[in-house]
């Protein structure tokens, strides 16, 4: 047991050191958000705010209807995430568990949509968005980005680890394909679906390109669109940008904390031990 305690000890030390390294920049920027405009870029730098102030937050919130933007982002991110999880799980399952004609080519096609620098294609994408009547509507922020190659890929790789025997024995019992998917596979895929939910919420919340492309009216702005406006032609309004960025991470963090419990316990209960 001595060996085991020593390993545990080592694990803690390593984890804590790495965690400190990772959190330091975040900690620093968060502390900076409570510094006055004159202290923020002072040299030599101060670590803790000399005079703690909430001015940056107050001013940033006055610079736009942020309550509205947070609501918009939440609606878009939640709905899009639900859609993403549903359709990507479907596709990932199909690619992992069925040998259908064209499956390889289609999968490569899906992945290859990741490889294009989309900003160069913004004008044609704009046309398509308008064609489907999604211009200046939340539908344009929810539906097109909901199909994510990463999500399909993630679920496919996950389903690859699920034994095909499970499907076959269900078929022998006379279960339909739909039933197998909904009643056997979906519960097993819960951990991967939780991971995708975490990712998808973050992608949609932090997305800038789609809102820029789709949205015209200010009352439909998302948080990221509003945040970007703190960068002017000559200078960046760091005071407001840093403060508002600190706030805007919170919803993503909450989603992470809510769902991370899901993805770690999944396998234990799924009857995967064979």
């Amino acid at each position, binding site marked *: 047991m001595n060996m085991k305690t020593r390993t545990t000890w080592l*694990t*803690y030390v390593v984890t804590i050191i*790495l*965690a400190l390294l990772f*959190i330091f*920049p*975040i900690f*620093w*920027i968060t502390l900076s958000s409570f510094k006055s405009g004159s202290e923020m870029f002072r040299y030599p*730098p101060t670590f803790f705010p000399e005079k703690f102030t909430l001015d940056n937050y107050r001013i940033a919130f006055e610079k736009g209807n942020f309550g509205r933007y947070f609501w918009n982002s939440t609606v878009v991110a939640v709905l899009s995430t639900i859609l993403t999880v549903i359709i*990507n799980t*479907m*596709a990932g*399952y*199909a*690619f*992992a568990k*069925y040998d*259908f004609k064209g499956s390889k080519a289609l999968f*490569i096609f899906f992945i*290859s*949509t*990741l*490889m*294009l*620098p*989309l*900003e*160069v*294609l913004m*004008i044609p994408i704009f046309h*398509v968005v308008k064609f489907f009547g999604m211009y200046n509507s939340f539908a344009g922020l929810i539906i097109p980005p*909901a*199909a994510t190659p990463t999500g399909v890929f993630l679920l496919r*790789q996950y389903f*690859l*680890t699920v034994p*095909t025997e499970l499907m*076959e024995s269900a078929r022998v019992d006379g279960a339909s*394909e*739909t039933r197998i*998917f909904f009643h056997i596979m979906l519960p097993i895929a819960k*951990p991967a679906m939780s*991971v995708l939910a*975490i*990712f998808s919420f973050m992608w949609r919340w*932090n997305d800038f390109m789609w809102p820029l492309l789709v949205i015209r009216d200010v009352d439909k702005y998302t948080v*990221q669109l509003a*945040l970007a406006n703190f*960068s002017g032609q000559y200078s960046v309004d760091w005071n407001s940008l840093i403060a508002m*960025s600190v706030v805007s*991470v919170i919803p993503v963090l909450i989603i*992470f904390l809510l769902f991370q419990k899901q*993805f*770690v316990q*999944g*396998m*234990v209960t799924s009857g*995967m*031990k064979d």
Partner: protein
Amino acid sequence: MKRKKNRGVTSLEMKLFPYFLILPNLFIFTAFIAVPALFGAYFSLHNWSGINEPVFIGLQNYVRAFHDMKFWRSFGKTLIYVGISLPFIMGIPLFLANLMIKEIRAKGMFRAIFYWPSMVSYIIAGISFKFMFGDNTGIINFLLDLFGKSKIGWLTQGRTAMFVVILATIWARTGFYMVTYISGLQSIPVSYYEAAEVDGATPLQGFFKITLPLLKPTTFLVLILSFIDLFKAYGLVLALTGGGPGTATKFVVQYIYEAAFDGKREMGYASALSMILLVVMAVFTLLQFKVNKGGEIE
């Protein structure tokens, strides 16, 4: 564990079901990406500023791209960046993921800490790293100065700037891949480890004999995703160095965007460069698929 073909029982339902499953994604990808990409391919054969009428010029944009040394130099820099970053981006998250599934206290908090940088926007990641590595405003140089060492021009020299960019990349992306790995690790049945422990295997042996082979689908996923992700690196680099000093950290996507949106706004040329980029990445990905058999467990 290998996927088997169903023997005999090929009902119509079984044939059509997978198509039904992929239909929503297929539709969106086709409409919102493939169709615009076809337009991109079409524009790549034209002289087009985005606002004027496209003028057909055949393959001239591709010929020009072939001779564009600046483009290939940025391509080369991208390869160096990808080549150095990739092992770290694959390795560090794997290491952390293994720590994070152990029985330690406050796991949730530690996971959140490692994931946190992935949630931060690039412009904030950029300013955070400038707070640390800025030549005259950064804390690292401040500390060096304090202890009587000479300052280092972190972001004013090509090599050190590349180093900082890679460091920032690792910092910003580790959390994402760590979470991906954790989900993969969870699918390895605990009974395997228990059996190995009974057989007297050390944890390290367990890692190489059980974890790595069974984690292959996830490792493959991380390999492909991080490769594409790194190859397309743009936002973070722009916020941190702007591609500088000079052009030392100007990677290929930034070069393409500058062709499209700066200067003479050569959308046609930028489209051609995008197509080249697509082909290069697609070839690499296909090769990986062949070599790794789609990341299936053997």
